[in-house]
């Protein structure tokens, strides 16, 4: 299966829901502003968020008024265009050119951080890169074991300390180890933390700071993993994590469910943080580079 087909398959549920509903709204109706109420409904139930929804509706309204939109095909095309625009240009993860490249992963509990790291490790090991994983989630029961299983599966190296030890120390050791082994990539796992817990956010700040003691311009990427089923709170998460450590990108996971992940629109609109990767399945190669055009196209593709 090609890349686009897989993406389409992964997003099938999302697409069906969304497109089917847009179409049922537009069926046999003259296009006027009353249609907009229904479209607003659809956007909101896709977790797109009130702000981004309002933007799209506003644009549609003007186009209807000016007569630029007459039939239902125009509306779909217009929504598609606007949505892609809202997500900006693709900014994939590029680890070449810096060695070792250091990625710090963060997020609230249960979003799929460790799994994402496993998939990412798989991708780069397959490319022939040497990868070091840092078991920085020293809090959750058996989190280290979970990462270790991924290390075994992918053939990546793993740096671990004992449960309950200082995650910053683990991160530091991993970066140091990567330097001495001349590794290409270090991916640092961290414990899930709710963004409103000051102490935990301070801990993350410390991890970030300590990494810089080994390599001053590291981490080269700080990625926030966001659960695709999360609602408006994801925006708040991105905002706070961004304030604390400065995010370079978002990883959107669990898009193979019925959730639409519409929150990425709000995140990009409000904070300008690009979506770098999306998870569309449980297999290792189901972690994909994000492209706004493909994402939106896959939503609308029949």
């Amino acid at each position, binding site marked *: 299966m090609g890349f686009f087909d897989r993406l389409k398959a992964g997003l099938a549920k999302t697409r069906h829901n969304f497109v089917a509903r847009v179409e049922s709204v537009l069926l046999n109706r003259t296009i006027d502003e009353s249609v907009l109420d229904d479209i607003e409904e659809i956007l909101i*139930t896709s977790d797109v968020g009130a702000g981004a929804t309002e933007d799209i509706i506003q644009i549609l309204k003007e186009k209807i008024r000016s007569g630029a939109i007459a039939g239902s095909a125009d509306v779909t095309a217009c929504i598609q265009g606007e949505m892609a625009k809202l997500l900006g240009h693709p900014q994939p993860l590029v680890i070449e050119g810096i060695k070792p490249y250091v990625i710090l992963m963060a997020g609230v*509990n*249960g979003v799929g951080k460790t799994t994402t790291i496993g998939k990412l490790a798989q991708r780069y090991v397959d490319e022939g890169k040497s990868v070091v994983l840092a078991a920085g989630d020293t809090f959750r*029961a058996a*989190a280290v074991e979970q990462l270790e*299983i991924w290390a075994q599966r992918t053939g990546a190296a793993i740096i671990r300390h004992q*449960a309950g030890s200082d995650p910053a120390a683990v991160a530091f050791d991993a970066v140091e180890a990567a330097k001495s082994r001349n590794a290409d990539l270090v991916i640092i796992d961290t414990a899930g933390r709710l963004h409103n817990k000051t102490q935990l956010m301070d801990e993350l700040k410390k991890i970030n700071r300590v990494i810089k003691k080994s390599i001053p311009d590291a981490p080269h990427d700080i990625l926030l993993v966001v659960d695709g*089923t999360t*609602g408006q709170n994801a925006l708040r998460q991105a905002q706070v994590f961004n304030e604390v450590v400065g995010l370079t990108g978002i990883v959107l996971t669990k898009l193979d469910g*019925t959730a639409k992940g519409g929150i990425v629109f709000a995140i990009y609109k409000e904070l300008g943080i690009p979506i770098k990767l999306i998870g569309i399945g449980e297999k290792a190669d189901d972690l994909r580079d994000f492209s706004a055009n493909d994402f939106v196209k896959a939503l609308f593709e029949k």
Partner: protein
Amino acid sequence: MFESLSDKLDAVFKKLKGRGLLKEDDVDAALKEVRMALLEADVNFKVVKDFIALIRERAVGKEVLESLTPGQQVIKIVHDALCDFLGTVNSRIQLAPNPPTVIMMVGLQGSGKTTTTGKLARVFRKEGRRPLLVAADLQRPAAIDQLVTLGKQLDLPVYSDTGTKDPVAVCREALKKARLDGRDVVLVDTAGRLHVDDELMDQLRKVKEAVQPKEVLFVADAMTGQDAVNSAKTFNEKIGIDGIILTKMDGDARGGAALSVRHVTGRPIKYMGVGEKIDMLEPFHPDRIAKRILGMGDVVTFIEQAQDAYDQKEAAKLANRIMEDSFTFEDLREQLKKLRNMGPLENILGMIPGMGKAIKDIKVDEKEFVRIDAIINSMTNAERRDHDLLNGSRRKRIAMGSGTTVADVNRLVKQFLEMRKMMKMMKGGMGGKKGFRMPKFPMPF
């Protein structure tokens, strides 16, 4: 980002102050705000629709109580309706007449099933029962390890079998073992999944058949968006659930998912997870969630936590002082100490009505407390008891002594005086009009 609903509604009704009845047009304008607030809180769109219809019916033509503004009146109606929608308090978990009682935990990936299983086991043990944990999540790497570790923490047995991929077989063996060892509660942790996966849903159904649980509990993440409805519905239809446990309630999500999940399944929410530690599971309180969804702060929780921190007698003493208008810097210092004992300040402030919005912009600086403490400590006993003594030269001395500036001291004194003024107002309100009043807590910033 979120403006509190009370503020918005107050704005809608500002121009209407003084009118007696809630008119249809006014109600509709207000309901538009209510609708947005609910959507922003991630309540599912369809649920919002049902809910708004109910509110409309209740609100139109309603007389505005004397003590309330129309905005407050609508909030009260919305709040009461939310409570009705959310169900009753304290839905206990049913026990089987013939032990062991089997409880099956189901839910999406990452919702917090395994952690909640451990927390629930702790609750049962506290009630004097002998739980057995069963690791039937054979999907996620290390899920078994996680449950085994939790079992160790709790000093409770965990049944697991790493040699098989068949959760049904694991459960059968676990039940046998439970009977042999005289375990009276068996908690089965199943694999998390995206509900679209029919194969895994099948597997869950088979597990249910094999273990014949007294209750199937659906674990739901409070941060879930519009999709909460789909997953809850599917789990309920395909497997059948008896109750809901909401997790990650210690985050700052509005928790609209609670309303959605409860409404589409008709099943009660029994517990909520309020922290990562193993003892952080609380019975579900509909009124608290209702307030949270509305952005009104978790007043009850705040008051309860305050009660824990305050000794009853001391509280009475403090109330007396307020009544007598003799609140001093000494009292302030005491109060601040208590406040800081209640946990991270930002959590506590977030629970106070009206503060939710205010602290969005204000970074609470814990150091400010240290400063205030230092200033008060640098006062003489007489100054602490009588703030009128604080003239310019005394303030200068206090600033020097506490390593602060005169401006800092002045600010504290001003805040202190404002607090006293507020307390006087509270005193005036006490025992007066009854009804829906927003409690005000004196805060030194």
